[in-house]
């Protein structure tokens, strides 16, 4: 067998100069030939680290082995045993710190491009006339309510449906997908892909109730009268602000608002779509995560001359996926690292016109293991702007904790749930995803959903809490 190539098979992408002005997806995906070539790099380890690195333990060598043989249909069957949302995961998972981070090849060379292959196989299936169906167990007669149709909820819903339970998903917004539709932009995750993956879940018999705000229309207690178990996956939907002077000036958005306008409401197509968005010429985005990258890149596509990222730590501490940081740089996002806003200055009509910042330096490590940024005295300077996007994180949505007596919450309003089972302090109620952990990743929410579905199944069988 020839030695595997030291580098990943590259994926073709839209030219950065062109794509910075459109909302079409950046990478084009592998051709079948490229996928087979990449799959052949896999050593099919006996003890695959990649599987352990995956929060939902996909049989990675299994599906890659089938791709290498050209058996794409078989590859997809293996994929769907553990992951019903592969087109999404292949695009948005932080592979470098999960599957690919554990790949043996990665010790000396580049790891196998697991994410690219996952994406390939899912996109290949979408082009076929039929799709791989999951094996469904006979109906149990038990009813499960899933609150929130985001990554955690979709996973619980599909897993519970496969186990034979009757599942209803309740979604507050007018479209299913949670952060996949309101948060992640079209150029990173096309909405047709989310629609396809959601329709796969509903094709398994999962009922979907849109525009239903649990906690307002029905409470969790009312759901417990109708359903045998309730899963709460309502996410980290409440935006954090810094609480600095001038933050309520006009032109200052939370990333949630900015991205929801552009993605869910399609404000980038205004006036064809009715929801407007400010098309700033000088946009500052505050933060260093995926959401910050998404916001800064959206600003460019909305026509900004300058899209500037302001982050208080250094490049190394940025929590964003490395591919997103790389794409952002290619597109010309200006990185202002070790910089922290301290106040906003508005004009006489209340519109933001400048951000005053302080330079930072890294001090001792903090609780997260990252070095704490410390202000440099006297380093104040101003960046002229017309639009600001605050992307410094989200806290749990309080609607359900506020309206569910007996549901224990932690300090920041997160729902307390057993990390192995998703069980909460309230009988019959499970929780997982960002509502439990605080803002994290799509795949971690799916992992929590997988564990919760298994323990819901056990609870429904035994009745034991």
């Amino acid at each position, binding site marked *: 067998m020839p030695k595997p190539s030291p580098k990943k098979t590259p994926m073709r992408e839209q030219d950065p100069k062109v794509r910075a002005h459109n909302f079409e997806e950046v990478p084009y995906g592998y051709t079948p030939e490229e996928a087979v070539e990449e799959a052949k790099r896999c050593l099919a380890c006996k003890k695959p680290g990649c599987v352990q690195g995956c929060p939902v333990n996909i049989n990675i060598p299994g599906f890659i082995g089938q791709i290498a043989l050209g058996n794409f249909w078989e590859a997809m069957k293996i994929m769907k045993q553990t992951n019903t949302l592969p087109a999404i995961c292949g695009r948005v998972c932080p592979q470098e710190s999960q599957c690919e981070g554990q790949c043996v090849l990665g010790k000396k060379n580049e790891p196998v491009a697991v994410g690219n292959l996952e994406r390939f196989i899912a996109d290949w299936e979408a082009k076929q006339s039929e799709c791989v169906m999951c094996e469904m167990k006979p109906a149990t007669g038990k009813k499960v309510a899933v609150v929130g149709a985001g990554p955690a909820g979709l996973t619980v819903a599909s897993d519970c449906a496969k186990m034979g339970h009757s599942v209803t998903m309740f979604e*507050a*917004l*007018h479209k299913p997908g949670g952060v996949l539709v*309101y948060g992640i932009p079209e150029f990173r995750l096309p909405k047709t892909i989310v629609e396809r993956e959601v329709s796969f879940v509903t094709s398994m018999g999962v009922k979907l109730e*849109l*525009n*239903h*705000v649990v906690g*307002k*229309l029905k409470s969790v207690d009312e759901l417990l009268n109708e359903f045998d178990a309730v899963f709460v996956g309502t996410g980290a*939907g*409440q*935006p954090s*602000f810094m*609480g600095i002077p001038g*933050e*309520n000036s*006009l*032109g200052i*958005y*939370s990333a*949630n*608002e900015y991205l*929801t*306008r552009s993605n869910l*409401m*399609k404000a980038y197509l*205004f*006036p*064809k*779509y*009715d*929801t*407007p968005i*400010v098309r700033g010429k000088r946009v500052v985005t505050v933060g260093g995560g995926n959401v910050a990258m998404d916001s800064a890149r959206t600003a460019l596509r909305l026509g900004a001359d300058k899209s500037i990222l302001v982050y208080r730590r250094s490049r190394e501490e940025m929590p964003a996926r490395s591919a997103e940081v790389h794409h952002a740089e290619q597109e010309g996002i200006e990185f202002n690292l070790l910089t922290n806003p301290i106040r906003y200055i508005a004009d006489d*009509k*209340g519109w933001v016109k400048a951000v005053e910042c302080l330079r930072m330096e890294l001090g001792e490590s903090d609780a997260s293991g990252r070095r704490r940024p410390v202000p440099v005295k006297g380093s104040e300077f101003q960046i002229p702007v017309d639009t600001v996007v605050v992307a410094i994180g989200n806290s749990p*949505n*309080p*609607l359900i904790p506020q309206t569910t007596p007996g549901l224990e919450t932690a300090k920041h309003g997160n729902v307390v749930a057993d990390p192995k089972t998703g069980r909460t302090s309230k009988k019959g109620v499970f929780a997982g995803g960002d509502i439990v952990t605080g803002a994290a990743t799509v795949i971690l929410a799916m992992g929590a959903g997988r564990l919760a579905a298994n323990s819901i199944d056990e609870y429904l069988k035994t009745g034991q809490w």
Partner: protein
Amino acid sequence: MLSAGIKRFELDAAEIARKAQPGQFVVLRVNEEGERIPLTVADTMPDKGILVIVFQEAGKSTKLLGTLNEGDSILDLIGPLGRPSHIEKFGTVVCVGGGVGTPEILPVARALRQAGNKVISIIGFRNKDLILMADEMRAVSDELIVATDDGSNGNKGFVTDMLNQVIARGEKIAHVFAVGPVIMMKMVSKVTEPHKIPTVVSLNPIMLDATGMCGVCRVEVGGETKLACVDGPEFDGHKVDFDLLMARLRTYLPEEKQSLEMFESAHAKGGCCGGKGACR
């Protein structure tokens, strides 16, 4: 049609109608391209499964909504949202409604009356042709004062003038509730503040998801930032920064103008599609 540009719709929404309480609102979307429009619940008929909204045709989205006829449907309806009004027996209360705020104060006045309060209602309009829901307000009030800015109904003055007169009578007023244009709620709060009369106002900032997710509806109350959609929409009028609210409501004026002009010119060409969105 209640008066020029103001319409009342009965929506078939049994679940929401059963749950909605005075002071709460709904969000609706007319069609796929449409905005999420927040509207206060004006009334409910739970036994018939009907939810009533009253709206002023102001911009493109409300005009589009206004093109719908009986039997048409809207794409999305979400609710009830926001916290209900705090209703208890206060004693004598004054309910102030300005313009299209009148239908919104109606359920609050009714609930206050049912809770055993003496309800004095003051409603104000620019002229007598714009007077809305006076009979309905009279039915739930111990006393109703209707004022017009130009005096065309025989009682000239702003709602604040009427409120000052009521206060001057010397009766102890335990609470004031006000719904209407921001400037009206600001002036009402200014009238009651020196008399230390607790005053509740219902705020109408720009909203998007209206479930606490986006933060666009942030308002400052007593120096603290609050979200009107989940912490409100009712707040202590003596603590609200009304000027900030008015400024933030102007965020999208150019876009609103552009949308409206496009909509009206499509209408002028006879291209209207009865609210299906095709006339664009």
